[in-house]
């Protein structure tokens, strides 16, 4: 056991951090800077981060869940308005069924409440779906039942809407949207694969939440050091200090359990990986909401305005929290994994 990042992982983290520091928005106004956003997209593509879960020669991914999480955390911290979760999850799905990588930008589709993968029957999406993290994507992957497992198909995407998260737009796909089968699939997606894939999705969102929390703690501590009331920096008041200390602690605990979830994706059996990820997701989701609410509170009036980054962090945390299930669904999975109830079937 040695859960320190390897030198290569540290290099990856530092590279992601540099891109984030250089190209991510520092103010709400900068989200509208299309040139900046374009450069960020290009930097992410150029760095190869969207291919971490494509297949290497032996069919295994180029990078483990840990590396994906390392990048995801930095993007979350920087409120990166670029696609990562979606393309990464789509690439992993293609890899698992042995299909070749997508030619055009692609993401994944989830149920309307984002808690479940979409299973399309009869060549169409039954109840509708939501393509998440859809910036630039022209299609989204769904599952098609095939014996005990699944194959994968794609739905074409219409225009992007913002949704709760100002940094990662979504596309709503209406009930009945047609599904085209992905060519060249070499094997069905089994139950273990699907668990592992969900574990990856949960681990990535956990890492994103950790990044958001760390970003929130940083911007809020900065504000608390500079904002003065009653002749003193508000960060000198014990009440504010304790709010921020609790936020820092929540982020650190989350980082530890999220790290484990990232490792488990490739190191454990599918169900065990999913259990590890579920525990992490429940913990990080609760923590992130609390930390982001603290960020708003410490920013006071300003924190409740559109111009403050605090709500952008909260909104990103809300989306990541819901992807593949939030607190309730994941607590239920934890109980089920311990043999005391809960229900973890695909609905």
């Amino acid at each position, binding site marked *: 056991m040695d859960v320190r990042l390897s030198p290569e992982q540290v290099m990856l983290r530092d590279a992601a951090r540099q891109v984030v520091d250089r190209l991510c928005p520092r103010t709400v106004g900068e989200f509208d800077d299309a040139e900046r956003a374009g450069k960020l997209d290009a930097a992410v593509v150029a760095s190869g981060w969207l291919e971490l879960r494509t297949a290497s020669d032996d069919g295994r991914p180029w990078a483990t869940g840990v590396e994906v999480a390392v990048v995801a955390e930095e993007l979350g911290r920087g409120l990166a308005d670029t696609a990562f979760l979606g393309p990464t999850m789509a690439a992993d799905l293609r890899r698992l069924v042995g299909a070749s990588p997508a030619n055009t930008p692609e993401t994944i589709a989830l149920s309307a409440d984002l808690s479940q993968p979409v299973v399309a029957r009869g060549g169409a999406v039954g109840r509708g779906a939501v393509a998440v993290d859809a910036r630039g994507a022209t299609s989204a992957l769904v599952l098609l039942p095939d014996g005990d497992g699944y194959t994968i198909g794609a739905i074409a995407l219409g225009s992007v809407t913002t949704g709760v*998260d100002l940094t990662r737009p979504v596309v709503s796909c209406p009930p009945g949207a047609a599904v085209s089968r992905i060519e060249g699939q070499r094997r069905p997606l089994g139950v273990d694969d699907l668990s592992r894939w969900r574990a990856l999705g949960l681990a990535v969102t956990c890492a994103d939440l950790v990044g958001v929390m760390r970003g929130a703690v940083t911007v809020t501590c900065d504000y608390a050091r500079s904002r003065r009331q009653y002749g003193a920096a508000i960060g000198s008041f014990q*009440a504010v200090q304790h709010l921020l200390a609790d936020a820092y602690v929540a982020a650190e605990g989350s980082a530890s359990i999220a790290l484990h979830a990232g490792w488990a994706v490739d190191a454990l059996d599918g169900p065990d990986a999913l259990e590890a990820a579920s525990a992490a997701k429940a913990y990080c989701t609760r923590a992130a909401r609390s930390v982001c609410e603290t960020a708003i509170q410490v920013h*006071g009036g300003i924190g409740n*305005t559109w111009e403050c980054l605090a*709500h952008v962090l909260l909104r990103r945390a*809300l*989306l990541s929290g*819901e992807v593949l299930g939030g607190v309730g669904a994941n607590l239920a999975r934890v109980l089920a994994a311990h043999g005391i109830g809960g229900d973890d079937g695909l609905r």
Partner: protein
Amino acid sequence: MDFGDSPEERAFRLHLREWLGHNNPGLPTSSTSDEYWAGQAAWHQTLFGAGFFGLSWPKAVGGHDLPSVYEAILDEEIIAAGAPPRPSVGYLVQGLLRHGNEDVQRRFLPGLVSGRDRWCQGFSEPDAGSDLASLRTRAVTDGSEYVITGHKVWTSYSDAADWCLVLARTDPDVPKHRGISAFIVPMGQHAIEQRPIRMINGITREFGEVIFDEARVDAANMVGEPGEGWRLAMTVVSHEREPGELGYVARYGKLVNELVHAVEEQPDKYGPEQRRDLAWALVEADMLRCHVSRRLSDRLDGLSHGPEGSVDKLLMTGVEQAVGHAALSIGGAASTEGDDTWLKVYLYSRAQSVMGGTSQIQRNLIASRILELPTS
């Protein structure tokens, strides 16, 4: 000890109930849609015109001189009808009633109470939030007028207001709490610029920034004597913390009923975690209803201006945020089905622990003024 109606109260309630059955304007949920603020002005005038507004205020200003508990009955019936809450102008009314002279009361209160005139409140400034007394807006005499220069924020409905109750420093040479005066400033002048504040849930018409650049106000529009503005501010702020004055029991009652309805419509959609959040919101809203009845009953002994408002404010904040969390839970953080009203309710709820004095400030006040804990 009786939460029930006297015969007079019962008669009033039934009359009100029937009227509400025919006159509910069905506005969108407050604080989630800019349409609400436009419709709310008409609702104010409708309520007033029918004799259901200002129940416990003096007849002389357009009220009804009824015992304060009638406000609780009004809130309960508004909830039952699913109607919009009564407009929250009570804290301004209380401020003028207590600190304004006869002339000010006569000229301004009827228009405020009836809803004919729209009002806003120019207290907070960018560098004077929790520490309100450090405000820097200046008012300088010029003949029979004062000239006001400064920058106000968190000014509710400033875009539509006819009048602004402004705190400004008239004497920079005395301790900061003693150099502040209060003015009723006409908003319709070029020297006043209004900029909307966009809240985190997207609404832009509830709050504004107001920049006074040598705006003018008649000295007769001063409320209280020069230097007495802080006392007015404390009266206004203390009532602003009272859910009974704000009519917020109806705000929360309406929201939780709508959440219950959402679950009734699609019972299979909601698991134990979501139902639990909703149950707590129901319990919290019920607590506040009972608590406001208690506070309004206490007013039967006479109106008080003590530190209890900080208790009420924290309780109200707890309710607002429990309802907000239930809204997030039931509505879904990431809902892409239909509208995002519930997300907006949640996001707006975060402001309740800041506006009218942060929760931290309220706890300080309770610790020092109620619990009499030592200062450090």
